């Protein structure tokens, strides 16, 4: 039983069924149309939930019956890759906070530099390439600031 639960399609099927159920239940709170209007605000979400329920079942069954399943094994996941992923999302959030605080230029240079290293460049401040990465970050920041801030009048 547990081996089936690790299959991607089975997980997706269950997630789809949960989503269908949630949409159906929440749409029950929408007002019911009066008079001869048979369709109201809940009609479309309900139709979507029916479709999702059927598709969820199809995907889950397909996932159980398939002979070449694609599985998720958390123990085999590379910790370095997961760390990189989380760090990237945090960098994106920090950069967005920087924009909110009107600190575009400084946050952009820092985040670009961080992202360059997260996406595969070597991290060595003494290396000449570091200066190249820094230069690239500054140039791209200036270009984006000029295009969006000056040309498109975005409040950066």
């Amino acid at each position, binding site marked *: 039983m547990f081996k089936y639960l690790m299959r991607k399609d089975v997980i997706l099927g269950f997630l789809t069924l949960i989503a269908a159920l949630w949409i159906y239940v929440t749409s029950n709170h929408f007002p019911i149309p009066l008079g001869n209007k048979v369709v109201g*605000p809940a*009609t479309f979400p309900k139709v979507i939930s029916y479709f999702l329920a059927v598709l*969820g079942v199809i995907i889950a069954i397909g996932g159980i019956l398939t002979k070449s399943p694609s599985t998720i094994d958390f123990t085999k996941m590379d910790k370095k890759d997961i760390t990189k992923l989380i760090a*990237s999302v945090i960098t994106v959030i920090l950069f967005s906070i920087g924009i909110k605080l009107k600190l575009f230029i400084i946050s952009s240079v820092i985040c670009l530099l961080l*992202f360059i*290293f*997260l996406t595969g460049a070597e991290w060595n401040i003494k290396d000449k390439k570091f200066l190249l990465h820094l230069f690239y*970050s500054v140039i791209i920041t200036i270009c984006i600031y000029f295009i*969006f801030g000056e040309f498109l009048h975005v*409040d950066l």
Partner: protein
Amino acid sequence: MVGLESLLLVFLGLLVGMIVGVLPGLSATMGVAILMPLTFAMSPENGIATLLGVYCGSIYAGSISAILVNIPGTPAAIATNFDGHPLAKRGEAGRAIGMATVSSFIGGTASVFVLIFLAPQVANFALSFGPPEFFALAVFGLSIIGSISGDSLPKGLVAGCIGLFLATVGMDPISSHPRYIFGRTELLSGVLLVPVLLGLFGLAEVLAQLNDKTTVKVLQQKLKNLVPSLVDMKKCAKTIVRGTIIGTVVGAIPAAGAPIASLLSYNEAKRNSKDPDSFGKGNIEGIAAPESANNASTGGALIPLLTLCIPGDGVTAILLGAFMVHNITPGPLLFQEHPALIKSIYSSLIFANFGILVCGLLLAGFFARLISIPRYYLLPTITLLSIVGTYSLQNNIFDVWIMIFFGVIGYILNFLGIPFGPIILGLILGPIAESNFRRSVIMSDGNLTIFFTRPISLLLLVVTVLILVSPVLKKHYTKKKQMSAHGAS
């Protein structure tokens, strides 16, 4: 006609599109999505012209990396790989790129003339459509989910449902009752397209490529004989004409698109060749066929988009979003309400195709060098452009949070094999389908048979079912055929 400013923007869009197209890992869809925010401040004519330049440029330039690296820059250039790379290995990369350029120019330009001739006729016909027909049309438009679903139709349909659900967020179009806004007033006007688009095609793609360790090996050689010889042109003339026809027709069919057009054209060229065995080993016709077809599909795909508001493929679904961002809804009325925009679109497309010819022949070497740009410079730039582009929509950080949310969700969906194209399609066509469905039902006093008693809506719904069912039937038929062949052997 179109102004100098528009032409300059088409040219700039074309150059950017060619850069996007030539880089493996960046798709035409991603290019149009990321550059869309740059057009917010422009007039609709200039904005759409820029994006059309990106569209045409990226579809063409996919061939350069297909020839030099054996990796198609865009899915539309898959068939160009087959003969392009063997030619490059023989030291004839210049000859291959030259033929790809000229074929793309001929195919693309011819398809624009078909668009100019056919689009007004289709639009005039569609003027008689009422709410039931528009509902059926929206459902028909959703049937292209079948073609952009990747390996699994059910997963594509789930993605379509996600898009349709997102379209229900905000105020209900008829009763104005708020739905799924979670107490946020920012969501009253619905989930905006741009944050979703940049989250899925920008941030999510970047996160997915973060741990990709593949390296690109470019064949280093001087590009000679870029201008095709008369002998090559004579040899490929028929193939180019055939490819142009196939590309335009397939492009105009929702549920098809440039990759299918190019593969079909390649297959036909091989089938009609006197020397079919030379295909796949460096036959120049193997370049002319897919390249004329994939660029011809750009004009073809715009026919249903402009006249019926139905995108022909994933990229045109994004282009449809660009129209919406500029407060323009494509459809039959577009031709009456925005004649200047229509003329601008025609001129931009013709100019873009001439641009392909000139830039392709003159700057091929420069674009070839771009393939080697390290991933660690590209991905951070795309991320930054996605964030700033989203913020530029209305100077509101809430849009950026939505974009990041969809970036993370997109990463998970990508991991589970859910394609993004249908989500966008559902988000765009959802409101059209819902409002016209409800108007139709109100019109018929609650009688749902209205959709089946009107011939056009019935026809559209039947075709939709056929399009959705055909991949399943095809799979079943192929399996049966294989089993019977196996039994016979």
